[in-house]
């Protein structure tokens, strides 16, 4: 069960339409290292984690990623609001507009739709946690590229918050990997009475 909170995790303020920036930021909505992929990856991997601790981390970070998906959506929505057809054409977002108007859809920065092949769920907790560590670093790198591409300080502020969260998640996944490895090693000891 999930409970929705009618608030963003971090305030988003977009005052100027900017379809060119929206076109790039949308990759964190539906791209390979985006928030949809992140949330679904962790939430589906949690079932086969071996300890309550590891399940909690995947459950909670997966849930926070859903909130990040909403923040990214709010950015893209805000940047497309009030954008004229001329601005959309100039930004090269006319193809997206033909299919979706200004609606939110799960694509990467060049329009490729989201695919479950972006994520894996291997059943092996060591393999899955390594994937998650890599996923956090790839998302961090993407936010850094987006910060370089951003020409709107209000948007950059939000991108910085999201970038910082990837670093914290990487830290928690690293600790979880250590704890799971310790747990798996312990299982091999047998005590004679």
């Amino acid at each position, binding site marked *: 069960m999930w409970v929705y909170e*009618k*608030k963003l995790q971090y305030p988003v303020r977009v005052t100027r339409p900017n379809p060119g920036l929206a076109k790039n930021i949308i990759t964190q909505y539906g791209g390979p290292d985006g928030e949809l992929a992140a949330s679904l990856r962790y939430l589906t991997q949690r079932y086969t984690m071996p300890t309550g601790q590891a399940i909690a*981390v995947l459950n909670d970070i997966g849930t926070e990623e859903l909130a990040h998906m909403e923040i990214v959506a709010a950015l893209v929505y805000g940047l497309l609001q009030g954008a004229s057809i001329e601005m959309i054409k100039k930004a090269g977002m006319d193809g997206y507009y033909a299919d979706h108007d200004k609606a939110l859809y799960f694509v990467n920065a060049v329009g490729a739709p989201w695919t479950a092949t972006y994520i894996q769920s291997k059943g092996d907790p060591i393999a899955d946690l390594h994937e998650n560590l890599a996923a956090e670093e790839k998302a961090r790198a993407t936010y850094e590229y987006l910060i370089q591409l951003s020409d709107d300080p209000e948007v950059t502020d939000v991108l910085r918050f999201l970038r910082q969260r990837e670093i914290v998640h990487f830290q928690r996944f690293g600790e979880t990997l250590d704890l799971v490895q310790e747990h798996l090693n312990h299982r091999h000891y047998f005590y004679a009475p």
Partner: protein
Amino acid sequence: MREDRERMEMLKELQELSFVALEFNLYLDTHPCDRRALAEYNCFTQAYQAAKMRYERMYGPITNFGYAPSQYPWQWIETPWPWQIGSEEDC
């Protein structure tokens, strides 16, 4: 306008308090025996719940499904939704 500013300030406080609670939550997931962190988590949880109730009394529920009561008529459907707050056209 003044009410709007007050609302945004209260909302920001909610965002701050729930972020601190979330951050301690994730930390405790990998440090379950850290008593100081646990005390902080419980403290911020209490502060968040109190701030949430204050906000909801004035502006309607931010959680549904039995987590917050509603006045008449059903307030959940009221705008603005979160993504409508920051952009100029709405609210």
